[in-house]
């Protein structure tokens, strides 16, 4: 790091003009361009946030209305309502509205009335038919829907009355993630301690590429393997009833997460200064005692960061959970299925109408997922940065 800064001191002045040198406008321009391109990562993060949030915005602002039965305005009264009211009534954006002529608007109004007429009578009379199910209290709190004997959390985006409670999805995401972390963390950290502290060079040269290879297995392949092989093996071992459940998904997630937890904690353990180890060994500690009582505590923040980053990876993993558990069950029992956030987005986006409430809610879930992983990544990154600065400062 320090060595490189020698070259960096040769900066050039405004527009490449520097006292005592020839003007170098080209050089200056190139430097500025390179700088601009290097901002791409920041721009991309901002764009992701902006555009995922943009599609979800109407949900956050409470502008969507997913009620089944809506008031209708007869087509003849098109001139009696104001343009702004008409636009809202038809659920159009300002731009769409401006592009439409009078006849199109009339047709849309007819379609709207027809849609209302088509609702079967028993649903029109339903007490829940006039509820806007995209309101926060229906997204987060249980509600006693018609046909249920008590308030329930339920995600059911198909049918006449759409139910968008996101609590089942949150449970469905957390359940396999926790199983995966409980499975992967001890293994990965144990292996990291072994490889960085106890193993010889030859073992290290074998294990590190092998784990890189493991991280190179596409998640769809891990999902396939879990579906065809692991599910049956685990079922015969643990004898649970449902073959595809959160437990199988969790173990498969664990396999996907092992490489990331391993490589980050191994990195943290290796960055502990040699002098720590040497001092402990010189005092008569065994290799294991040095590893466990000296190196591990010193690198503990890094190991913690590895777990945090592993959590981010596991909760955002899509294909594995999509292939193994996609049935929606609200239960903390790990031996039952669970439908998580990622699964729901992947499975339902194709059938959601662009701009509709289902579409917007799926984007809202995406924004939520992005926020959770962004924060866990940020936390992991800051912890590692601090640890490195501390260990390097002590050298």
């Amino acid at each position: 790091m320090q060595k490189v800064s020698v070259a960096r001191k040769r900066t050039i002045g405004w527009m490449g003009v520097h006292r005592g040198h020839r003007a170098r406008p080209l050089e200056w321009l190139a430097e500025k361009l390179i700088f601009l391109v290097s901002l791409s990562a920041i721009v991309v993060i901002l764009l992701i946030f902006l555009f995922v949030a943009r599609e979800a915005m109407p949900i956050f602002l409470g502008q969507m209305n997913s009620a089944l039965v809506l008031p209708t305005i007869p087509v003849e009264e098109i001139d009696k309502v104001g343009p702004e009211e008409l636009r809202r009534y038809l659920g159009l954006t300002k731009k769409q509205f401006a592009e439409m002529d009078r006849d199109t608007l009339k047709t849309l109004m007819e379609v709207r009335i027809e849609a209302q007429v088509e609702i079967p009578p028993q649903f029109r009379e339903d007490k829940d038919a006039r509820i806007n199910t995209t309101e926060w209290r229906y997204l987060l709190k249980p509600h006693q829907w018609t046909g249920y004997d008590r308030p329930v959390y339920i995600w059911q985006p198909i049918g006449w009355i759409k139910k968008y409670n996101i609590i089942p999805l949150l449970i469905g995401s957390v359940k396999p993630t926790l199983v995966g972390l409980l499975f992967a963390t001890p293994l990965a950290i144990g292996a990291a301690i072994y490889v960085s502290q106890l193993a010889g060079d030859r073992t290290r040269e074998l294990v590190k590429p092998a784990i890189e290879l493991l991280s190179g297995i596409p998640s769809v392949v891990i999902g396939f393997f879990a579906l065809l092989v692991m599910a049956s093996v685990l079922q015969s071992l643990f004898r649970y009833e449902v073959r595809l459940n959160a437990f199988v998904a969790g173990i498969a997630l664990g396999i996907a997460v092992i490489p990331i937890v391993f490589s980050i904690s191994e990195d943290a353990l290796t960055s502990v200064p040699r002098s720590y180890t040497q001092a402990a060994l010189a005092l008569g500690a065994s290799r294991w005692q040095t590893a466990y009582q000296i190196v591990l505590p010193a690198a503990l923040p890094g190991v913690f960061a590895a777990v945090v980053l592993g959590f981010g990876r596991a909760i955002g993993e899509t294909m594995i959970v999509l292939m193994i558990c996609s049935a929606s069950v609200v239960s903390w029992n790990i031996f039952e299925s669970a439908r998580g956030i990622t699964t729901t987005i992947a499975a339902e986006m194709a059938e959601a109408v662009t701009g509709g409430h289902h579409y917007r809610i799926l984007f809202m879930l995406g924004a939520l997922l992005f926020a959770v992983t962004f924060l866990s990544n940020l936390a992991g990154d800051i912890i590692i940065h601090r640890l490195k600065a501390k260990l390097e400062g002590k050298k």
Partner: protein
Amino acid sequence: MTGARVMNGQAVTRHFRAERRDVGSHFFAALTGLSTLFILCILAVILINITWNGWQGLSWRFITTIPKKDFFDISTTGVLPMIVGTTIRVFVMTFFVLPVGVITAIYLTEYAPVRSPVTRIIRGAVNNLAGVPSIVFGLFGLGFFINFIGHHMDTILRSPEPTWSHPSILWASLTLAVMTLPVVIVATEESLRAIPMGLREASLALGATKLETIIKVVLPQALPGIMTGGILAVSRAAGEVAPILFTGVAYYMADLPKRLTDQFMDLGYHVFVLSTQSPNIEQTRPILYATVIVLLALTFALNVTAVLIRARVRKRLRALG
């Protein structure tokens, strides 16, 4: 915390002596070794199972056949369109991601002030981008590329029918390019750091400007590392399915894609389709295994190449101290 423990020599010595005869020490050391072994076993089991079962279904005909609509029949099915689709999307992606990633890495190693907040933020963004879930990239591709850029392109170009504002190879590749940006940046940066400072200094001392030094001295030296970055990005992207779900992949297409605005079939997605949509999983099993082996061969061949090149770069880095 640790410092105090090390410095307080007496206490530490006594503590260690007490544990010296303890079998626990050996036990726990063995435990870490076992967990390493267990991870290696998982890898071995996965690879052996897939190769063993996949070998039988694999044939030249399977690789070079365009399947009919019903691709669950082993005797007539094939994976040619999937191989073509995956290859094209990955190459288009490389075309976009490589320049941006390499230039960012050049800025970070050659120009960026060491402790400036901007550098720190760029690095933070790169690290964070690497951890964004792939499904979020898919949503981003749908919301940004298709519904925003594509929509506006259709309006500006006055397309008679939606050409740009629907899923296509182009948008899938761009989504993947955004996703693999950190992979390229990190690998290139590593290889740039491995180049001895002396080379740059010699070039500057001979009167070359900084830009000339970078283009004529630094970049040629960093080429293997840049290749590693590209290959790693390709191998990561080749197996990703979630980002392309809404941005370009098709369940079935009768023909190979012809334009960048066409949809495509994909190996990873095909694995997903075969394993979840099959009417009879026992009959699909051989096709499924054969498809997985093709996908794995593609990603692993790339991965192993990247690992080998990187090992050489790292060796040089270590030699520099």
